[in-house]
């Protein structure tokens, strides 16, 4: 079963109540928030209603909050090659 990975890129400020209702139904509250929904006709229709605001990707499984944070973390860029005796 695959999932939609939906990220809100444009804010809903100043948009009609119906559009904001669709975002609320998707569970999107603020910009750059990411939610996962199973690929169903319902979620596809909701995404089409707000397609100008969100970026959508199809993924195999939903990621947890911890994994999403880990995606954004930059790599350390170093490793300890020779440590002094401690």
């Amino acid at each position, binding site marked *: 079963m695959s999932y939609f990975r939906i990220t809100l890129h444009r804010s809903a400020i100043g948009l009609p109540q119906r559009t904001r209702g669709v975002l609320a139904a998707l569970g999107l509250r603020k910009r750059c928030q990411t939610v996962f929904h199973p690929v169903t006709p319902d979620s596809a229709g909701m995404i089409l209603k707000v397609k100008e605001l969100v970026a959508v990707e199809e993924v195999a499984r939903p990621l947890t909050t911890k994994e999403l944070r880990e995606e954004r973390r*930059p*790599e*350390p*860029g*170093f*490793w*300890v*090659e*020779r*440590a*002094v005796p*401690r």
Partner: protein
Amino acid sequence: MSRSLLRSVMELRTPLTRLPPTFLLPSRALSTTTTMMQNVAPAISPAQTSIPPPPNTPLNPQKQAPMAPPPAEAAESISQLFPLLRAQPRHYITAHIHGRPYLVTEGDQIRLPFKMPGVLPGDVLRLDRASILGSRDYTLKGTPWIDSALFECRATVLGTESEPMRIKMKKKQRNRRSQRVTSKHKYTILRISELKLLEPTV
């Protein structure tokens, strides 16, 4: 030994290494510089097949195209131009530690904006994440990172340094009580002990 030999041969062939950078040269000298570099570049690496540069574009060996070339072309240009970069005497590198860039060269001392956990003075760190590697005349830009097999960059932990104590007075309105908040941060000091360019393994 072979590197120093190669360097001396290069300096004999290119008297240009002693010239000031191209932006300081007069415009007439600039054009001669570029043509000289065109002639010299294949002479140093005779084994490689040289691609003649497009005739009408102004050739500047220090700059690459702003758009990232396709990977095959990039690999070819690395195999051709990396020996030239490697033969130059001093190099700099933009190493990234926790995503922040530090433009350093060998012998530099840098103060990280944080205290690195789990290291002691004397530890040798290997920096393997870099976006730019260059010398006086050549620059290798990563897309976005440079292959870490091309260079070896080591940094020695010198210790920690602390800033002077900061004192912040906090006061709420309509209340005489004021609070004194202090902070004193520590920062890790690194010295770039080694920056070496390796032979590309093709």
